[in-house]
């Protein structure tokens, strides 16, 4: 078998995310400061909704008190059941569709939004059992949901999203205007 021929053993090899996903961002979702979402788009067009590292939930040592997928009287994201290859039965979400509501131990409440249009395939139930995953591994085990955009829209959905560079630009402007964080 081929040997690992490269670099420093300590250097991080490109992660699964780096290899297969493209990061897209939505900053200040619904006008709320710093409520940034990160959408991981797989080369097969599936999108994973996650919190961007700048999201308030991930700051200042917060812990999560509860996560609720019941976003309204009639709608619980947990009831989303898809079947078959064509994912029948999936709830259709649009950019501003709420996915879940998170309450932190300091009583701050946040709503996580879809950010893209498509069929909701699954929401992460692991974070219901272990909310800490969301804090510790927001980009992997702490993901929020998986959405499958329509085939025709798979390119256009990213039109409203920021690339990594653009996002970093937005973030750096924040630190300038707000001296501390």
């Amino acid at each position, binding site marked *: 078998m081929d040997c690992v021929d490269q670099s420093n053993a300590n250097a991080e090899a490109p992660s699964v995310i780096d290899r297969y996903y493209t990061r897209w961002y939505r900053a200040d979702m619904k006008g709320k400061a710093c409520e940034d979402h990160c959408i991981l788009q797989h080369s097969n067009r*599936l999108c994973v909704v996650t919190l961007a590292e700048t999201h308030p939930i991930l700051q200042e040592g917060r812990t999560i008190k509860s996560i609720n997928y019941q976003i309204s009287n009639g709608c619980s994201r947990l009831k989303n059941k898809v079947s078959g290859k064509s994912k029948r039965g999936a709830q259709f979400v649009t950019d501003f569709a709420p996915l879940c509501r998170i309450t932190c131990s300091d009583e701050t409440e946040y709503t996580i939004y879809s950010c893209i249009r498509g069929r909701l395939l699954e929401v992460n139930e692991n974070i219901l059992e272990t909310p800490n995953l969301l804090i510790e591994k927001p980009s992997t085990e702490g993901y929020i949901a998986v959405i499958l955009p329509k085939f025709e829209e798979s390119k256009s959905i990213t039109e409203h999203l920021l690339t990594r560079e653009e996002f970093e630009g937005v973030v750096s402007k924040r630190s300038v205007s707000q001296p501390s964080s």
Partner: protein
Amino acid sequence: MTVMLPLKEKDKPIVKKLLSAGCCARCVLRFCCVSVQAAYRQAHQETLKELQAFIKEKETNEAQDSMPQTSTHEIIKSHDAALSLAVEEPPCKRAKPDPTETDGSESGSAALVCVVCLGILQDLCGPAQAKKIAETVKAENYQFDTLVLSVSLPAQLCVREHSCWLHVKKEVREKGLVLDKDDVIQVKEAFKWIIQGLVTKELVGVAVVGKVGRIKTLKAQPVDIKLSAYQLCLLCFFHFSRHYPCPPLEASSGCTPQDIQCLHVSVFIAGRYNKFCRSLPQTPWVIDGERRMESSVEELIAAPILSAFRADGFNFSSSGREDVDVRTLGNGEFLLLYWMVLLTQTINDSSEKVKVRDLQIVTREAMSRMKEGEEEKTKSYTALVWTQKAIEKEDIAFIDDIKDLTLDQKTPLRVLHRRALAIRQRVIHSMNARFVDPHHFYLGLKTQAGTYIKEFVHGDFGRTKPNLCQLLKTDTDILELDVESVDVDWPPPIPE
């Protein structure tokens, strides 16, 4: 030679009616449900004579009956005036001059095209036709042991058949008898009974079984029918006769054979292949019309085979579709290819990236065996694993002791776009770990078929549980993956 026709008294009215209607001798036999093949093989003129003799017998109560070799003009009397137009020119043209027809066949109807089979059972199944078929087959230069004959008939025939059947059914019912449509011998069947033997004679040494060379016959005269032939044939007499006459209209000319095609039946090939390259996909990788990666396992194996076999097409089915970046070593995956045969050397010489072995012709049933194998087999892999935290040899020793670890794997995100969302339980039978450096080790695994190895290693967002990250309590990733073997005995190895 004359064959004693197995006809009974009850068949007399049917025979009479059909002959008057313009049916040829063989079609009459069919409607009498005669299944003695020899009866069809004798010259139809002979059969006609016998039929005529038959209805003449014991005619004590039927003084008025005229000889049944009538022209079809008789049937016209029972129909609307409008239809008589069709008869203006008495049809006397034969579909195809049959050199074997003797002049003894004087009766008018022998010279006329049968109103049901349009001549197919008259002159289109004789030695001349058989010769043509045989010549076509020989010209195509195939090598074969068995030949299967199939024929395509124009839709009009089933309308005529239905018409005739309705015509006869009425008569039969009046006499308190029953004529079930299913008992009537089909034109196709009679045709094959007659022509198979003749074709066999021309192709010495080959048994003609049932279907391969296809003879397409073309109706010479279109008939204006508004309902589809199929729909028509479902109608009862009352409704049917509003669209089409019972018995059928005579035809001014019969069918002409369209063409004879030789087709290869499917050949199934099984074998094993090795993939030695990490940038070769299983099937052509094309997105939006653009090829993303050069070539594919499928193309490299199939191309030489298709040309060697002059095949028109193929289906490549493999049990185990490894990713582009995985190498398959050891005994290799087994594959099943339709429509092909190959010299192993041709494939192996044509590319360094893929090699095949144990190629053999198998039966269609082999498909199900391969699918079974997919469920039951185990596969062995070697993966190169990266760990985020620094490890020591002792940290990975416990891996060797893990036996029969059951995983719950949600459909990996990387295939979720095309597969149903589900949780699959898969077993890792055993593993072993070989330390390389503080951030790398080789992980050997023996797993149940269908286990997603990559997802076991990196966890797939925590959707495969348990996973290696959890076991080692660190982030892990997979850098390389090789299939070491597919632990199944099929297809049987071929000694080199």
